[in-house]
């Protein structure tokens, strides 16, 4: 059976499903207000734009943004608690092409299920808080920059809303590119700095590579299924229609294309290179977009499209391995960096790797839960780093800061950072502990190629995580008080306080807005462990309502009623723990993991305290010892140079394309234009050169030529006539 016939058959089975069932539209209009989750940030964008246009010099843009995001959050919470939320809420028609026997429809509509609500709740919630934080953080830029910043945040929230709440893949694509653009906008916020501009560009372009995957996936899904709306897709898959598709090549290709998209947006190998550079943006942006929300879009995408992945088991193996390896690689790079934000950036890449590992080993719940907890604690970490940067004139080098917790006004920062660190390190009974364990344990439970090795890699990574996290805290917040200011003295510091750079520098401690936000989000990070203990309504697995929410959505890690299909993954999760379990050291992995990761985290933490608090000189000694040994020297050097990935990219992608560009340019200029076009155009000129002498300006020579020409023609005619007549006679 060829691909075409299958595809046509599927397409034929679909026209019965009109793209927009009329009943649906009518019903959907009843919840039109849900659209305000998206419209609020949009309104805020317009108002911020007006503020910029009218040169508002106050904090008005910040308050507008905070207020509108808070409204979005409220609407999200209300929507989440409604009893009878329609699955789809149609807002307006976007792209719709109808023809005689088919249609392509992508409406601007919302798809509401528990996964949507889960994601939107922390996106809008954290968005509100971080906007509040930024209202103080961005103070030095009051005026045009301030409005520009908050407009960017609004764009981001709008796009993220479209991404998460969209009812079809094209809405997702809209959000997908939209967040990429918002990220471009905000990374390049300090547009005079070449590094910021380059980082913004890099982020957008690398993301575009991922977007290409998403675009192709959308084409392919439409070509195969004839629809790109989630509800119709899921129905088709659920009904078992996929059984006919199963051997179609597209089923194998779709997950890989989606994966490319997810890896681009969520910074996984080999497309993670943009995320560390993205730290050129203002810190609230790093916290919101490049740690808490946008980068988790890839996990969202895979969770949303999970049924496609379940149809192609190998793809999940790839996801798991890429996630695990990224986690390890990024952790090793993070260990060797000195810039606090960069460390946190690599830690984000690493944690995202954990989440993909979770998706790959069939625990969408674990991955989503880790997304949720990670959003809080990583936001705290970035925000504290931002507070430090803000207070110490851009200083982010952890060798040049020390003893923050003993300084006046910096206690809240120091201790909220501590909260973030223990969560990230997975210290027992913190939120990170539970969410990470859900993933780690599952790596040993689920069967797959080398998943056990992967599990051990992940455990090792967890150890590294604990180490490098506390390396930061011990260096920056503990120890003797000591600091050197950075080189970014704001202009207002200069003029108002009148002191020179470096001399008599007073770090300005964060004020109310920053402290308040830090405390709230830190509390959130701690409380994020609560859902784990909450009772379950749907199933009896651990994980409380987050597990319920995930299992209640398209991300449920099993297609009900089709688990016996020969192609689906042999797995034993999603609720019942009755059969086949992997084991670690002879124990139930879920139990064992509590001990193992607790111990591992403790060891890492101890190591960090030893090397970076109690005996800091040992760290330097270790480094110089390593550097002095030829056989091991490459390791720290490679780690500090980020494994030369950027350089490899340059050599493998950028340089060849650049060369190709120049070759094409030369080809265009000299071969196509020079030789073919101009060469052809030169022919008449060459011919003209021969006859040019005739054009001598002498009237009578013209006349002779003319007479001669006429005579010649006459002669020719006579000859021809004779020739033809002669021919006719004979």
């Amino acid at each position, binding site marked *: 059976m060829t691909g*075409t016939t299958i595809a046509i058959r599927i397409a034929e089975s679909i026209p019965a499903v009109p793209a927009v069932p009329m009943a649906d539209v009518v019903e959907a209009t009843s919840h039109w207000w849900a659209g305000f989750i998206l419209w609020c940030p949009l309104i805020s964008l317009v108002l911020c734009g007006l503020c910029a246009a009218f040169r508002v010099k106050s904090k008005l843009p910040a308050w507008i943004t905070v207020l509108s995001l808070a409204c979005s959050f409220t609407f999200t919470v209300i929507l989440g608690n409604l009893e009878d939320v329609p699955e789809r809420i149609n807002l307006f028609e976007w792209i719709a092409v109808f*023809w005689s026997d*088919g249609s392509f429809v992508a409406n601007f509509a919302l798809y509401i299920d528990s996964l949507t609500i889960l994601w939107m709740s922390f996106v809008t919630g954290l968005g509100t808080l971080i906007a509040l934080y930024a209202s103080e953080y961005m103070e030095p830029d009051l005026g045009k920059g301030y409005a520009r910043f908050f407009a960017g945040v609004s764009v981001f929230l709008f796009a993220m809303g479209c991404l998460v709440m969209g009812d079809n893949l094209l809405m997702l694509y809209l959000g997908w590119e939209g967040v990429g653009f918002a990220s471009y906008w905000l990374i*390049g916020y300090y547009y005079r700095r070449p590094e910021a501009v380059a980082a913004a560009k890099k982020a957008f372009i690398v993301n575009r590579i991922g977007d290409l995957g998403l675009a192709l996936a959308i084409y392919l899904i*439409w070509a195969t299924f004839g629809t790109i709306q989630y509800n119709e897709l899921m129905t088709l898959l659920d009904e078992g229609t996929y059984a006919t598709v199963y051997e179609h090549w597209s089923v194998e290709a779709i997950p890989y294309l989606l994966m490319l998209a997810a890896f681009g947006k969520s910074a996984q190998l080999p497309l993670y290179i943009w995320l560390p550079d993205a730290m050129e943006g203002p810190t609230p942006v790093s916290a919101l977009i490049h740690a808490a929300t946008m980068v988790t879009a890839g996990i969202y995408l895979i969770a949303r499209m999970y049924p496609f992945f379940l149809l192609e088991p190998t793809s999940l193996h790839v996801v798991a391995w890429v996630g695990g390896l990224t986690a390890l690689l990024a952790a090793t790079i993070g260990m060797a960096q000195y810039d606090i934000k960069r460390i946190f950036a690599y830690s984000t890449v690493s944690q995202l790797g954990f989440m993909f590992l979770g998706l790959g080993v069939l625990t969408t719940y674990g991955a989503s839960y880790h997304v949720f907890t990670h959003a809080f604690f990583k936001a705290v970490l970035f925000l504290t780093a931002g507070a430090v940067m803000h207070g110490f004139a851009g200083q982010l080098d952890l060798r040049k800061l020390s003893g923050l917790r003993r300084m006046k006004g910096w206690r809240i920062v120091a201790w909220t950072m501590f909260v973030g660190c223990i969560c990230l390190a997975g210290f027992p009974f913190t939120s990170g502990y539970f969410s990470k364990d859900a993933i780690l344990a599952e790596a040993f439970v689920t069967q797959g190629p080398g998943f056990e090795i992967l599990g051990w890699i992940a455990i090792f990574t967890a150890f590294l995580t604990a180490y490098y996290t506390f390396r930061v805290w011990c260096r920056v917040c503990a120890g003797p008080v000591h600091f050197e200011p950075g080189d970014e003295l704001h202009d207002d510091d200069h003029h108002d306080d009148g002191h020179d750079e470096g001399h008599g520098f007073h770090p300005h401690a964060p004020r109310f807005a920053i402290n308040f936000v830090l405390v709230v989000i830190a509390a959130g990070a701690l409380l994020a462990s609560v859902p784990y203990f909450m009772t379950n309504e749907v199933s009896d697995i651990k994980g409380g309502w987050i597990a319920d929410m995930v299992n209640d959505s398209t991300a449920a890690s099993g297609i009900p009623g089709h688990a016996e299909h020969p192609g689906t993954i042999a797995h034993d999760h999603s609720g019942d723990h009755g059969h086949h379990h992997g084991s670690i050291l002879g124990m139930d992995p879920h139990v064992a993991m509590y001990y193992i990761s607790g111990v591992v985290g403790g060891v890492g933490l101890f190591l960090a305290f030893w090397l970076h608090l109690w005996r800091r000189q040992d760290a330097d000694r270790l480094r110089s010892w390593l550097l002095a040994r030829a056989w091991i020297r490459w390791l720290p050097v490679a780690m500090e140079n980020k494994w030369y990935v950027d350089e490899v990219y340059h050599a493998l992608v950028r340089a060849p394309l650049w060369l190709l560009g120049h070759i094409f340019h030369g080809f265009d200029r000299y071969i196509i234009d020079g030789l073919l076009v101009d060469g052809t155009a030169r022919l008449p000129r060459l011919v003209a050169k021969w006859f040019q002498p005739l054009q001598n300006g002498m009237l009578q020579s013209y006349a002779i030529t003319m007479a001669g020409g006429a005579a010649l023609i006459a002669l020719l005619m006579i000859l021809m006539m004779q020739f033809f007549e002669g021919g006719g006679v004979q």
Partner: protein
Amino acid sequence: MMSWLLILLPLVGVLGIIAAPARLAKVTALLTTLVVFGVSIAAAVGFGGWGNGTMGLTGSFQWLTNYGIEIQVGADSVSLVLVLLTTFLMPLAVLGSFSSVKDRLREYYGWLLGLQAAMIGVFLARDLVLFYVCFEFTLVPMFFLIAIYGSTNRARASVKFMIYTFTGSLITLAAFLWLAWSASQAADGQWTFAIADLTRHATTSLAASEQAWLLLALLIGFGVKVPIFPVHTWLPLAHTEAPTAGSVILAGVLLKLGTYGLYRFMLPMCPEAVVEWAPVIAILAIIGIIYAALICWIQTDVKKLVAYSSVSHLGFCILGLFALNPMGLEGSILYMVNHGLSTGALFFLIGMMYERFHTRDMRAIGGLAGRMPIWACFMVFFVLASVGLPGLNGFVSEFLCLIAVFTAGEGGAYPGVLGPWYAAIAALGMIFAAMYLLIMVGKIVFGPERLPAGNHDDGPLPKDLGVREIVVLVPLAVLCLVLGVQPWIIIDGTSAAVADTLAVYQPLLEQASQQTGSAVSNALAGGAP
């Protein structure tokens, strides 16, 4: 009546300019273009062909009846969309040249108006004679606009533009004449030049090989105009040297004459040959997309960069046409409009920059965001529209073209002769577009400020955009946004016309995909393993 008005009003405006003193030339031109725009809006509102594929605004005028030459005008929805694009861009082009053109004003505005009449004539023509006359007449005003008001290398650029495109169209003319002759042979010496009659003749009585020759001749003429890959080299030169308004009109409308020609003549007239040769044309378009994008990437001249980007972008438009399904054609029509808006706006912006700093070299100038924030905002906006950011216009058309190509063929849901591989490779253009356009923005808009040395000693530094310039840009921006969010305005209006065009392809394509394609498409088709 409306059609005659649309064609003749600009010419009346030319008379007005000749009659009025030179200082009133620009006002006269602006008023004329505004009136024409108003008339076109009125025509569009009263137009009965939206969504049902019929002709409207028809009219005819007996000329050389012995030879079947009757001047016929009329519009279907696709024509009217392009007429609206033309009449919309013209007032902006006029307004945009107020400050850049300082002498020989009457000629300048006169030529612009003449150009407008010709362009509208092309879109409204319903017989080949009027079409061809207008099609060629667009060259004359453009030639003078480039040759008189262009920059340093203008003489060469204008001559090349003229001769190159003229040579191409002559071959098309030959094809038209042959077609009319062949139709007259079939109709016992009864000559006709009406497009509808000739189309009927071509589809019903031409052999496949004859259609192939017709296709080739049409492809040469219209392909040069679009331009398609190997015959594109006149475009960067002409664009670079043309005055701002010239570039805007060139990119906005004149290039669309080529794609419109393909849509209006090639698709309906030689369906069998199109099915046979679509893969070849698609491959040329894809080469153009990638090739021009990479050339853009290493450009230092901003205007040249945008010019090459047109070559790359119009590749998508061509692909959409030859996907031969409704999405592709809709995407392609949208692409014609969207490219006109966003690239036109980019040329305006570059012109505004050039007016202030007298350079287009990205190495010499940069970081203008601080000095010219409004300009920078618009620049980023239109670059994003051009890159194809969803929510703006460029995305819709690009997406429709690509998904159409993807599904048109093996592995796709609808019969066609292209396939997934065509779309996958063409989609690389999306990445490249982001690369070159963002590099351009990164250099001239962002980064540390760099101004060309030594040209401001004589006066104060240039200011940000004035009200007039903002007025030029805002309508474009608004339309970019509206068409990005509500593209149904065009899609629904033109769907019936598109369906009519495609009606003849349904059986051909099904046949082609059942017989595993023709020799050509078989050799080239990618798709399912």
